[in-house]
């Protein structure tokens, strides 16, 4: 049996680290990776995925997906499910950017129609979707309205003219997660978030105009079910989360949990793994506040999509309805949710943490919108702005093996500090333009940090998850225009 970095090979793309690896591990760790990917994974992944395996009440395995890299607390690309009674909830298992996620919107435009206008379109998107440091959005609301956003997410947007009626059903959880409790959100968190609806932020967040790659339209029959009928059809992808609102909710409760752990006799290997029993008052309070942030993130992406529709309307002089600009789907990749899964021969509710990991439910699952239920859940994997992204499909095998979870992106191989030493933002912009990608960024340094060379090969990540049967390839999406914060 092959062994790489203390992980035993279970199949071509699955590796396992047994509990004997580190004292205190409650379950084994499982890593989805080709031999090449696991050999190249940074040491932080192995340390962190096994630290997570030590948390109380963890069920089955601590997982790292093929895009895993060194994060804080959990690895990025980490998945862990916890027993509702004996298990914990951890802000570090969700991330500060609660419900950071991906949304994919289709158009009926083809590459030949969009290419001549890409600069006009990207420049207008950059004006309509605020990006960058400390930026504020254009939606003005009072505290009571903001609390409605916390409770109702996309539903609030649709009722307030920031979306279409059918947008709601095309978002994970129907556009809002039940259980939001605005009374558990601090005034500071509300103050940070109330003016940020419809803003992109910075880091790796982007809004990207993409085209279905004709050479890699793997399952055109399935693509058609999602409205992708041409092999050079233009789509728009959005990557962002709950902005300062979610960041503050996480910071607030990280402090609460850091102190509360003593009370529950919980010790962790990394303070960022601070946690509390899900059944405790602290756990319940954080869950109620975290859901508020998750719903705000759904609403944030919705307002951005509203602006994107406006931009297309102005540039192509057609109503967004006539351009068929429907949402294909919207997925969370920083979240914890109570879901029913098969565990130890039975079926029961567990708390699934996905930190840089995407839900990947198989055909027939009741949580998939009726229009897609027979097919499986659309999975959106965002790559670097140079190398493109993927639309995939969830599977029954994911339900069996990974609590219905798959990867979320390509995963970094190089730190931001290292990346900007290797390339300048201006050079990168010119290189990308030569390669047919027009990018407009809030800062040159921020652009350099997101260069494609700082990431793993997304195709290898996607191929790994496809080969494992966890999420199946539908289409590769090639970038032609991008705005980033």
């Amino acid at each position, binding site marked *: 049996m092959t062994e790489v970095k203390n992980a035993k090979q279970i199949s071509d793309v699955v590796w396992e680290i047994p509990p004997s690896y580190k004292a205190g591990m409650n379950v084994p760790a499982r890593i989805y990776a080709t031999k090449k990917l696991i050999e190249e994974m*940074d040491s*932080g992944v192995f340390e962190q995925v096994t630290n997570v395996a030590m948390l109380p009440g963890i069920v089955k395995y601590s997982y790292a997906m093929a895009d895993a*890299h*060194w*994060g*804080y*607390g959990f690895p*990025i690309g980490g998945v862990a499910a916890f027993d509702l009674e004996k298990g914990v909830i951890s802000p*570090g298992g969700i*991330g*500060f*950017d609660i419900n950071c996620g991906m949304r994919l919107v289709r158009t009926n435009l083809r590459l030949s129609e969009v290419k001549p206008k890409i600069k006009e379109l990207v420049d207008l998107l950059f004006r309509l979707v605020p990006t*960058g*440091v*400390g*930026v*504020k959005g254009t939606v003005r609301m009072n505290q009571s309205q903001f609390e409605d956003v916390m409770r109702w997410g996309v539903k609030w947007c649709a009722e307030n003219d920031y979306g279409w009626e059918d947008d709601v059903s095309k978002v994970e959880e129907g556009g809002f997660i039940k259980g939001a409790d605005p009374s558990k959100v601090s005034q*500071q968190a509300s*103050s*940070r978030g109330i003016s*940020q609806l419809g803003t992109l*932020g*910075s*880091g*790796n967040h982007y809004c990207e105009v993409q085209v279905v790659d004709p050479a890699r339209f793997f399952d055109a029959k399935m693509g058609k079910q999602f409205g992708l009928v041409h092999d050079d059809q233009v789509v728009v992808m959005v990557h962002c989360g709950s902005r*300062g609102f979610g*960041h*503050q909710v*996480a*910071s607030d409760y*990280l*402090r609460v949990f*850091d102190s509360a752990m003593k009370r529950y006799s919980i010790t962790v290997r*990394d*303070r*960022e793994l*601070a946690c509390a029993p899900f059944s405790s008052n602290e756990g319940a309070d954080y869950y109620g506040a975290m859901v508020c942030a998750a719903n705000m993130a759904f609403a944030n992406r919705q307002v951005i999509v509203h602006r994107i529709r406006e931009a297309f309307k102005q540039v192509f002089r057609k109503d967004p309805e006539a351009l068929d600009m429907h949402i294909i789907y919207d997925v969370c990749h920083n979240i914890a949710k109570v879901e029913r899964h098969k565990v130890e021969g039975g079926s029961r509710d567990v708390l699934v943490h996905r930190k840089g990991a995407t839900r990947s439910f198989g055909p027939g699952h009741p949580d998939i919108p009726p229009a897609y239920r027979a097919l499986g859940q659309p999975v959106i994997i965002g790559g670097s702005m140079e190398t493109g992204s993927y639309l995939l499909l969830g599977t029954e095998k994911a339900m069996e093996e990974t609590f219905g979870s798959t990867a979320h992106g390509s995963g*970094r*191989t*190089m*730190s*931001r*500090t*290292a990346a900007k030493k290797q390339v300048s933002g201006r050079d990168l912009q010119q290189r990308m333009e030569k390669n047919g990608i027009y990018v407009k960024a*809030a*800062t040159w*340094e*921020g652009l350099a*940090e997101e260069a494609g060379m700082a990431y793993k090969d997304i195709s290898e990540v996607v191929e790994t998850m496809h080969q494992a049967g966890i999420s199946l390839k539908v289409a590769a999406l090639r970038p032609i225009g991008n705005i980033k*914060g």
Partner: protein
Amino acid sequence: MATKGRRHSDYRFLSNIALADIAFVARGDSLQSLFESAARALTEVMVDRRTVVGRVTRRIDVRSPTVDRLLYDFLTELIVVKDVDSLLFKDFKVSIAPGRGERRLACEMRGEEIDRDRHALRNDVKAVTMHMFGVKKAGGKAGRWEATVVLDI
């Protein structure tokens, strides 16, 4: 305001830690100067401070049970002020006093509202993480303090 011991303060960014994020080590000859170094490092992640003019003065007060929580809370407060009031700061004067079972910090800062045309903006910091986070007395020179901070980007 405390001024003694502010002879030397600095920070450096670390490569290859928490890859999607930004890590730094800050140092100071006193606890005050350590906090000022950390505030400068945090701000440098968001903006080139040389482009910020000190036209607005702001004071923040923070109370926390321990020194490391005080640093965590102080840096988090700076991120909050950036989002709520759109303010970025050029310089920081920190004073720290012990209280009953807590540490009290006051910081006077000079800076200005974010100006996208004039400021060389960088990354919008999401939060201070507790990964590898800690304040300690560094070995070697007497009285020298050091903190490791990983910021979520």
